[in-house]
């Protein structure tokens, strides 16, 4: 049976609906009113400006990480280390914010550059471990994630501790000039939004209109053939990791410079891992990423309100998004359910 092209295009909606049904069943099981709960999760935030800004403020770093991950996924790389790359970015930004004295625009420019460099460096390290140390990027990435969070704990408790003594809460608040200007007393920074839009364009160009993107695709499809055709898998691997690391690092900078006002002990809290789910649910399609990422941010924020109102556990939002991705992986491709695509790519 051949699935028409339009149907195939809408196929990604199927797992989403499946997951929604699953959640509704779950809500019934807990004795909650599903309609009311879904209303609180999905619709209520739109009625409230502060809430919307908070959703957007969370959207920025999540989308940045997801964009970076698109690049590494295209190259066939599982960049679990995105979490650590984000932390390194936040350390880079904090370092400038705490030590440099300069006008705001210089400071912010420096913070962002250093954060991206730091993230890229961490990414390169994972790539290097893979190409030269034969350490798979999943394991290398996990190790570097742990190292990054230990490093940030050390800095908070040691060299960057507040004058009144380390409480592990975080560093002292940064100077006002070091913070990203925020919109209407929220944690949403318009600059970071613009940078994210630019990043979407950059990734689109890199993947679709550049020779590098073509090489990455070749690498991702079949590393051995790509190598035989003259693509340096080692170099492209490291470049892809650095590219992702830079975007994740920028995300880390946004976390400390606008979500928080200082380096906290856990600035990321799994945003990098969440971004992996975003990319999967978007089925590796760039133009879906910002929307899926918005959806995730909305659901997670909504589930906080839900927890308060109904005493349902707030991990419900996490369960919903997780179940969706699981459904995508299990039967996300129409071909797996006996349908044939119009154009057969796989032999």
């Amino acid at each position, binding site marked *: 049976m051949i699935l028409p092209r339009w149907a195939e295009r809408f196929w990604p909606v199927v797992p989403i609906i499946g997951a929604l049904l699953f959640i509704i069943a779950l809500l019934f099981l807990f004795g909650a009113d599903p309609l009311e709960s879904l209303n609180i999760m999905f619709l209520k935030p739109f009625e409230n400006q502060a809430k919307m800004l908070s959703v957007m403020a969370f959207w920025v770093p999540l989308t940045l990480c997801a964009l970076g991950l698109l690049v590494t996924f295209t190259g066939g790389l599982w960049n679990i280390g995105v979490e650590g790359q984000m932390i390194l970015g936040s350390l880079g930004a904090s370092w400038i914010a705490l030590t440099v004295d300069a006008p705001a625009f210089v400071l912010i420019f420096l913070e962002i550059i250093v954060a991206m460099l730091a993230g890229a460096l961490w990414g390169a390290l994972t790539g290097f471990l893979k190409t030269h140390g034969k350490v798979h990027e999943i394991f290398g990435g996990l190790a570097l994630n742990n190292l990054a969070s230990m490093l940030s704990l050390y800095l908070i408790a040691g060299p960057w501790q507040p004058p009144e003594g380390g409480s592990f809460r975080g560093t002292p*608040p940064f100077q006002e000039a070091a913070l990203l200007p925020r919109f209407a007393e929220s944690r949403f920074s318009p600059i970071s939004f613009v940078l994210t839009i630019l990043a979407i364009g950059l990734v689109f160009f890199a993947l679709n209109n550049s020779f590098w993107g073509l090489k990455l695709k070749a690498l991702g499809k079949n590393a051995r053939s790509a190598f035989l055709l003259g693509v340096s898998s080692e170099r492209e691997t490291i470049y892809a990791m650095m590219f992702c690391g830079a975007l994740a690092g920028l995300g880390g900078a946004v976390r400390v410079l606008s979500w928080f006002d200082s380096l906290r002990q856990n600035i990321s809290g799994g945003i990098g891992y969440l971004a992996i789910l975003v990319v999967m649910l978007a089925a590796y399609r760039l133009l879906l990423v910002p929307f899926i990422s918005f959806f995730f941010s909305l659901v997670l924020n909504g589930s906080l309100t839900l927890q308060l109102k109904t005493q349902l556990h707030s991990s419900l939002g996490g369960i919903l998004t997780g179940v969706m991705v699981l459904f995508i992986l299990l039967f996300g491709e129409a071909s797996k359910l006996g349908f044939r695509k119009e154009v057969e790519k796989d032999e």
Partner: protein
Amino acid sequence: MKIKQYWRLLGSVLILAMLLTACGGDATDAPVVEETGAPIVEETVAPVVEETEAPQSDPEPIVFGMVLVGPKNDHGWSQAHYEGGLYVEENLPGSEMLLFELLNPADKPEATLEGVVDDMVAEGATLVITTSDEFEEDTVGVAEKYPEVTFINISGDDVLTGEAPANLGNIMGRMEDMKAIAGCAAAIATETGQLGYLGPLINFETRRLASSAYLGASYCYENYRGMNAGDLEFTVTWIGFWFNIPGFTLDPTEVTTNFLDSGVDVVLSGIDTTEGIDVTGQRADTGDTVWAVPYDYESACDQKPEICLGTPYFNWGPAYLDLVTAVQAGDWVQSWDWNAPYWDDLTDNTRTAAGWVNGPALTADMEADLNAFIDGLASGDINVWSGPINLQDGTTYIADGSVATDNEIWYLPQLIEGMVGPSE
């Protein structure tokens, strides 16, 4: 396309793992920034299933928000506050608690105190209690945003420093007295004259708690044991955090082992987890005569009753009941409360702000001495914070003949002379 399938499988496993941790993790996750704390488990609390009863049936409803940094069932700091809130709900008709647990960036990167408070106020909360020094700074922010709502930050000092707006108060339990009792119990029991204090990280709070334990110990060593207080060895080892983080903090198991190897025979715990009593208990099983004083949890002695000298713990119920009642009646005024224990009965959880339970390992003689000490503290005959007290660097802190003020205790800048261990 074998490889693709492999990826898919791996991906599924990964997601499943994430899901499982998302569902099951909260209860066991160590709260990331615990304050030093202790719970009161006066009554076993059944998991709250139906907590959302509409308050309209009561004539004078009051809704209060309770923000926890850790899970509500951590057998420690956060649970103590949660149970304090339940105590209010039980004893004040028309009161309803809005609970938000696990507000920390590791568990909920998408949540902020401001967002949570927005929701609580929208739900009708007229009082919000933020139960960690982690929230101190942000609580000032939301208090300014909602001047008509009353805010309480636990363990903070913004009222003292004058940084708090008029609708923000601070509450803390006077754990220092309980720590003095803990130190006294250790001094009464010790045979080697060497005590070990398992410290978390160094700040004003932990310094004054460790120092209170030392002052209690040296008083009792001199007065009940008839020894020279100067001969008492009191060593503080700071592990670096409220609980063990492998690779980052010192391992409390190892620290306790080192204490015991170096001749320490009573280990006092100032951290959130139970390594102190666990390791000491194992040592006792091999025939050594050693004791432990745990912390935080009223039933902490259950871990190893036969070596347990007693437990100091926090109890928030009475203070919260007074607070909510005052806000309901509209006569709350800003204050910085450092609530004293109820000396007549330190285990009366309807009265006391900080509690102490005698442990099963106390012999009758020891218990008599310890009770005499407690009675002395209660009547005011004994004050371990009376001079002369020198700081670790030898400077006089409290002159002979005078008694430390609350401020001097709260902002203790160093450990006390005679204690071994770093002050900062």
